[in-house]
């Protein structure tokens, strides 16, 4: 029986530099999130308990220094790109024509809104922070 290798993922795009860049960036942000998002989950859910993580606790502990805020903002950047571009792939798989265009634009808009909201939070939660 001939080997029919499974299609592992989205095929590496050819022809468009833009699509190829997105393809690579999905893998790059994925690797970034493997480190940052899993570490984040372990800190927030395993080392600590969410029930104790009041706004004051975030201010004092989690975001008590600028390095953690920078790391979390980096994670935000990764996740906004990865999650919304992933959803774009889903939209492109199941829709076409005007619906696809509208949903894709809605995703881009949503990505900007979420990125701005997250950036406001990480930058202004009682900024400036302690050195």
């Amino acid at each position, binding site marked *: 029986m001939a*080997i029919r*290798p499974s299609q592992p993922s989205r095929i*590496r795009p050819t022809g468009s530099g833009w699509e190829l860049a997105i393809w690579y960036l999905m893998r790059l942000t994925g690797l970034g999130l493997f480190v940052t998002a*899993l570490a984040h989950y372990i800190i927030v*859910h395993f080392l*600590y308990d969410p029930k104790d993580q009041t706004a004051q606790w975030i201010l004092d502990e989690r975001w008590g220094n600028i390095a953690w805020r920078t790391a979390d903002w980096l994670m*935000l950047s990764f996740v906004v790109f990865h999650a919304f571009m992933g959803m774009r792939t889903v939209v492109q798989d199941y829709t076409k024509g005007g619906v696809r265009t509208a949903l894709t634009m809605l995703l881009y808009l949503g990505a900007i809104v979420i990125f701005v909201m997250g950036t*406001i*939070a990480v930058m202004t939660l009682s900024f400036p922070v302690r050195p």
Partner: protein
Amino acid sequence: MLLRYRGSEGMLAWAFHRISGVAIWAFILLHVFDIWLASVNPPVYDELLTIYGSPGGRVVESLLGAALLYHALNGLRIIIMDFWPSMTRYHKQLWYANWVLFAVIGLPILVQIMAPAFGLKPPFSFGGQ
């Protein structure tokens, strides 16, 4: 597309990756909103925490962790096969390895998260609280 495709490890790996991905995306919307709330209205955020800390909240939290861990491990599997195409031949073995890692990493975290829902002390203590 999801239901018509031939069912086997490769198809399930893909389907779980997609389902977990969409679920995590939905959670990201909620999570960025709640952390934004912490900066603009801390009392409301603190109130939200009581939902997160409830038994039901802990179940959702565990499901999120499962989606995240699966998506992360299978994502590595995808990257391995994308950049090392000969490994595609072993895509099933890689997927089984994923599940072994999933169980080994996931079970302690599951116990730690769910213990308070049963009135138990979390088994691992790091002096954080």
